[in-house]
């Protein structure tokens, strides 16, 4: 229930921001009706749960996203240097990076964080880890150290 309320509130705020009409009562109520319709549809589809509406993670994102953004900027500069280097010093590497997240949601966040950071992409899920293709071997080494994994597990917040 709390997930449905959170989803509805989020959708209504989105509606307000996109429409820009804050005063007209008729339009506001019509927006509310469409929000409720969307939430009902989502409930019927069975996606209003801890995975579909991650409330806890939304709060924790305040600390995780800035760190991720900084990582993205750092690795962007690294990859840009490689591309602009006339010798193109790449050493593509394929490896399986283990994860410690318990839930599907946490694993998806980890895999997407890997992909979002240039220089490493998650290609597939294997039994014991995420198959990662990296532009350089050092990218894999950084992932293997496990800092991103630890932070995502903390972000996931499941025990």
């Amino acid at each position, binding site marked *: 229930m709390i997930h449905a309320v959170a989803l509805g509130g989020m959708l209504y705020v*989105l509606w307000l*921001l*996109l429409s*820009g009409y804050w005063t007209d009562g008729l339009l506001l109520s019509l927006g509310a009706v469409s929000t409720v319709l969307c939430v009902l549809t989502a409930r019927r589809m069975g996606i209003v749960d801890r995975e579909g509406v991650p409330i806890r993670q939304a709060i924790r994102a305040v600390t995780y996203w800035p760190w991720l953004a900084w990582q*993205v*900027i750092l690795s*962007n500069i690294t*990859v*840009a240097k490689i*591309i*602009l280097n006339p010798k*193109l010093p*790449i*050493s*593509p*590497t*394929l*490896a*399986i990076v283990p994860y410690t997240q318990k839930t599907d949601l946490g694993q998806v966040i980890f*895999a*997407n*964080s890997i*992909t*979002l950071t*240039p*220089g*490493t*992409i*998650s*290609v*597939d899920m*294997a039994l014991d880890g995420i*198959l990662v*293709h990296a*532009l350089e*071997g050092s990218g*894999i080494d950084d992932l293997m150290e496990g800092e991103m994994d630890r932070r995502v597990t903390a972000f996931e917040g499941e025990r």
Partner: protein
Amino acid sequence: MELIVDLISWACILTGGTFLLTGGIGILRMPDFYTRIHAASLMDTMGAGMILVGLIFQTGFTLGSVKLLLVLLFLILTGPVSTHALAGAALTAGLRPKNTDDRTGGTFMGPMTHVAENDPPHPDLIGEDHR
């Protein structure tokens, strides 16, 4: 004050443009598909992100900047998903990374068993350089 905001937004837009161009060059220079993806993600994260952040600074606190922020959010949330889908589909279809240091023990670099057994990939799925 206005000058400072202008300067910040110009710096952001210029950085974004530079990263876009770098990513574009990378897409052309990289030797195989899997390395090209890395260059493309350069454009999607820093390129698009910096340009949109610069535009947000130009707009100030209005509904317009909220919408720009939403564009940025959609791009950042959907970009990795389509990149992952692309790479995963290429590997499943049998496109092999070239000159790659394989630390998986060869499980992913050999012929794909279920593809070979169930339906052989279409020649066009693999591409002219792998035939």
